[in-house]
Structure formats: C-alpha cells, structure tokens
C-alpha cells in the first residue's frame, strides 16, 4: 500500500495537537524523564564512603591511634564509637549501627616496631555483601600503605612482583559516570513505550478508530503518523537528559553527538513501535500502560546491563538479554559518553536496534487491524 504524505501529515498533526493538550502525556514526555534521571542518579550509587566502624583499641599507643587516624583520613571510614570490649562492639554490629569492628590487639606497637609484624582485625557485616567487599578492599589498601610507612626507618622494601592498575574511561571509578548514560537508555525505554501505549488504545476506547478505519488512511500511515511526534519528543528528551546528566552529575561526554542522535533514532523507532504494538493488541489504555510498564521497566533495569553486568549472568539470563532492546542502547550510551567510541565499534548494536525497529513497527502495523470484527 502506498504511503501518502498528505494523510500521514494529517495524522501526525492531529497526534501532535492531542499530545499537547493531554496533561498526562505532557508529564510523561517532559517531566518524568528529568525526574527519573534525578531520582535514580542520586539514589543509585555503588561508591561506598563514610563506612561507620567501631574501634576496639587494646593497645592505646601513639602507633595504634595513628592507624585509626589513617582509616579516618582515607575518607572511606568514620569511627562511630570507641568500645572498651569486644562484646560492646558486637552489639553495635548486631544493631547495624556500624558496618565493621576494627580491633587493634595489645602489643601492637611493640610488634610493629620489633619488625615481627603486627596483625589487626577488621570484622565486617556480611549481610551487606557489596559494602563489605568494598570496605575490605579499602581497608587492605589503607593498611598496606600505613604498614609501609610505619616500618622502622621508613624503608620500603621493593616487592618482587607488583601490579600497577590503571582505569581508563572513568579513572576515578565513579559509579555515577556509569549510571547516568545507562540511566538515559533505561528512562527512554520506559518513556517511549508508555507514551505510545496510550495512542491506539485511546482511539478504540473513544470510537474514533472506527471513523479512521472508514477513511482511506492506510494502517502504516496511522502507525507512522502516530510515531512521528513521539520521535521528536524522544530525541528532545534524550538531549535534555544528556545535558542534565553532564550539568548535574558531571558525567563526561567524549563521543559524537550526531552518532548518539542517530542511535537514539534507531532505538526510539523500536521502543515506540513496541508501545504502539501493545496498544493495538490490547485496545485498552489502562491495560496497555501496565503491559508497557512491565515489558520495559523491569527488563530495562535488570537485564540491560544497566545495574548488573551481563557477562556474569547465568547462561539462560544472558541469552535472554539479547531480546531486550535497552541492552543495546545502554551499551551505546555508555560507549559514546565514556569511551567516545564511534560507529566502527557500535555497528552491531546499531544493527540489532534496526532489527527491533523493523520488528516493532512491523508488528504494530500487522496487529493493528483496521477491520472491526
């Protein structure tokens, strides 16, 4: 069936006017993306600092105090309390007032200065495994550095093997820099499907679909006409969230704006198509919104690689992630933002997203039956 630009234009114009007059769509389109960015941007962080610990100092010497000071000076730990006994400290741990107990044994200073080597204990609350792991790594580093400095004569022994780690793209390993680009991808998957989920269902509920079906307008013209205004809004939303991410969270943007725009377009075609498909299939605004939410929100958050590394997922889940369009867009946004990579690297993602765009729009056009049976 041929595509008539006059009919397509009439549909798109009508959709645009309706969108402008619908407060719910306006909130979805212009308020929710920024709100989600701020909400998740501040809420989700893996950076752990100011870990509260309780100190049991059985040595009470200048050396032991210096060790505790080193913990505090690192910025990763704060001393919530000095306990007299181990039992007292344990109570704090059980009550979750602190995340760990640092115990300095008696004779610490003596052992240290004698060159025999001293042992201090850090007891961690493993019920929060993530924080415990990070705290342990920080403590290791602090103790190693402090130990080297505390050696008599301050002579550092050269280790026979030494690793010199260095992190690219996000040198300070700030998780927010990783969260924000991924977050933009996740937000757009949700918003895109929610926006279009309403459109065709609304026509069915109001009875306007029957009137449309009686005109010469083609299915593909209806689908594309509904898509166009939302495509513009989607591009606008991505621009706003990118700028906000940079301005508010200081996320670096190292890649090409044009490439991001092109990739966003590909992604939005699929995501908006999915919303239209759901809307056409269920014909109810409430149901379509709920399905769009479930179909996009959880997979985008859990299976896109946004929160959890895909490579370390079990095989079945990992295979499943290939079905989540957000997965590709998360890779794209992170790549462009942090690594500044270009099309030569991201073409497989582009190809997959193109596939989803064709699939989404094809399904939408196919399922949306103009015939009223």
């Amino acid at each position: 069936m041929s595509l008539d630009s006059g009919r397509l234009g009439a549909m798109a114009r009508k959709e645009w006017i309706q969108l402008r007059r619908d407060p719910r769509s306006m909130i979805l389109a212009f308020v929710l993306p920024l709100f989600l960015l701020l909400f998740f941007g501040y809420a989700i962080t893996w950076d752990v600092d100011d870990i509260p610990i309780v100190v049991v100092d059985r040595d009470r010497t200048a050396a032991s105090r210096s060790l505790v000071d080193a913990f505090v000076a690192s910025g990763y730990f704060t001393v919530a309390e000095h306990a007299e006994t181990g039992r007292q400290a344990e109570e704090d741990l059980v009550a979750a007032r602190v995340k760990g107990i640092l115990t300095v044994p008696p004779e610490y200073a003596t052992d240290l200065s004698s060159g025999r080597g001293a042992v201090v204990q850090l007891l961690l609350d493993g019920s929060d495994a993530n924080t415990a792991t990070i705290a342990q790594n920080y403590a290791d580093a602090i103790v190693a550095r402090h130990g080297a400095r505390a050696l008599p004569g301050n002579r550092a022994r050269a280790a026979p093997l030494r690793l010199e780690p260095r992190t690219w793209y996000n040198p300070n390993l700030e998780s927010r820099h990783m969260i924000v680009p991924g977050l933009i991808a996740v937000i757009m998957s949700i918003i895109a499907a929610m926006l279009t989920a309403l459109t065709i269902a609304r026509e069915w509920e109001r009875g306007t679909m029957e009137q449309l079906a009686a005109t010469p307008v083609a299915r593909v013209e209806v689908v594309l006409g509904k898509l166009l205004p939302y495509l513009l809004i989607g591009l606008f939303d991505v621009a706003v969230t990118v700028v906000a991410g940079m301005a508010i969270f200081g996320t670096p943007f190292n890649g090409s704006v044009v490439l991001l725009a092109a990739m966003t377009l590909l992604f939005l075609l699929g995501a908006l198509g999915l919303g239209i498909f759901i809307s056409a299939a269920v014909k109810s605004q409430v149901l379509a919104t709920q399905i769009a939410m479930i179909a996009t929100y959880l997979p985008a958050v859990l299976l896109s690689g946004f929160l959890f590394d895909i490579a370390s997922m079990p095989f079945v889940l990992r295979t499943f992630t290939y079905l989540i369009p957000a997965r590709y867009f998360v890779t794209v946004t992170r790549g462009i933002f942090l690594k500044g990579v270009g099309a030569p690297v991201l073409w497989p993602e582009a190809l997959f997203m193109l596939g989803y765009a064709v699939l989404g729009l094809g399904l939408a056009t196919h399922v949306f039956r103009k015939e009223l049976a």
Partner: protein
Amino acid sequence: MTEMEHPVVVRELTRRFGDFVAVDSVSFDVRSGEIFGFLGPNGAGKTTTIKMLTGLLTPTSGEGRVAGFDVLRERNEVKRAIGYMSQRFSLYPDLTVLENIELYAGLYGVTGTRLDRRRTWILDMSELWDARNRTTEQLPLGWKQRLALGCAMVHEPPILFLDEPTSGVDPVARRRFWDLIDGMAVGGTTVFVSTHYMEEAEYCHRLALMNRGRLIALDAPRALRERVVEPILEIRCADAPRAVEALGGVPGVLDVAMFGRSLHVTVVDAVAGSDAVSSALAGAGLTATDMRVVEPSLEDVFVSLVRAQGGALVG
C-alpha cells in the same frame, strides 16, 4: 442496471459470527439520490450490514457493490467514494471544530482552495462558525452530530452512510438533522441511513425493514403502511401496563403494544374486536377513556410483518 442508477447493490450478503448469523442473505438496491432507510430493532443486523458496505467488515458470503466498487476487493475505492458517520459520531473531543474538519480533509486528500471551500460549507451547514475554535468535547450533542455529518461530507462523496446518526439527540436537534439530510439528498447525494426510531423512518424515501438479520420488507413508508390489513384500535386507558396484561390472549386480539401513553391493539375485526376489548378491560376493572380505529404506524407495520412471518422480535 448501472452504478449511476443504483449506487448500492447488495446480493445475498451474509455475515456470521461463529454460529450467530448477524446478517442473513440480504439483497437490495439503493437508488441514486434517495434517502434509503434501514429500520429495525437493536441487533437486527443494521450496523453489521453498514460495516460490510463501508469496508469495515468482511462479508462471510454474498456480494456488495458501492459506487460501482466491490466492497470486498476494492475497499479503498469504496472508502474514497463514501462518507461514513458512525453511531458514536466519533469526533476527536480534544480537537477543535476546525481541527477536526482539517484532519478529515487531510485524510480524504482535500487540500488548498478546495479545503477552504469545504471548510466554509461545513461551518455554514452546521452553523458552527462561532464555535469553530472550541474543542468538540465542550459542544452539545446536537452540534457534535452536525459537525460529524460535515466531516463525513468533507470530500463531497456521492454516497453517505449514517449509522443511527440521531441516537441520544433531543427531538428538536433530531428534526433539524433530518432537514440537513433532506438537503443533502436534494443536492444529489444518496443517503443510506439506519435508525431504530420508527418516527424518523417517515423521512426516508424507501425503507428496508430488518429483523433478526433478515430483510423482511422494502418499500416506501406509505406503501408499507398499506400492507397492514388488520384494523388497529388505539385505546387510552388510565393504567396502560395493566391493560396490556388484561388483553393478552383475548380471542380476536392479535397483538397488544404500548404506543406512547396509549395502547395499539391489532384485532381481526374492528367491531367484534372493540367489544372483546371493552369486556376484557371491564373484567380487569379497567375502563377505556377513548377507543378508535387508527392508521397503522410504522411500528404497527413492523410488528405485523414480523407476526405474518411467524417470527419474533429481537430484544
């Protein structure tokens, strides 16, 4: 027989939904420039027939040609040639009067000076100039109805399909709407209109009576009324519902129906019938304040035809 004389030609058109036969082998022709009424109770198959003729629904079997195009194989040509107004006169409530007109103009390819001309025509016809920038959700039902009619006519189609266009509209607005329809027909448009308001059917040049998916009669309203041979008594009575009960099964009485605030009683013979009715009412402790033989209404025609075919009414 050409499409010039018969813009709508229907042959043994049938639509089944599972075991249910919504439209059962219906055949008729619509003449050019006439107001063709489709009359019957809800569920008689009127809307299903209209949907098949407007390309919205695929017939199970049979044939339909509209403006010379096959309703099954040439749906797009059919859609371009007709105007259609559904039961819910589906305008976009959040668009203004002008925006609704321009949307349908765009969908029917009406542009440029033709659009200017049609926009003016619609606003004149519907008398909505002052309301042209108001969203349609703010308009009274009668106004929406006129706008929907205008939108259906935006591309000047030779055939107009109206599916129960006056449902829910007050009698004054309904009357005015029928004047507009009449004007369209005078202007050469063929109007195919369905209704379940019997009194509206009088506006039609010819009427197709539908019941249970079948066409039971097709003729001018006057000719249809003449088909009823049994006399009909109009009775006024204080307690009409009880009177209906009292008259049921009385020998010589064929049918009793409420007709507004009075009763229409079809009898075998006028004289014997009035005696039987009077005594039956007296037996129930009721008295008729007025009783006379009247011309059959279209409702009486309908009931009589259904009874003659041994059928029952839907609903």
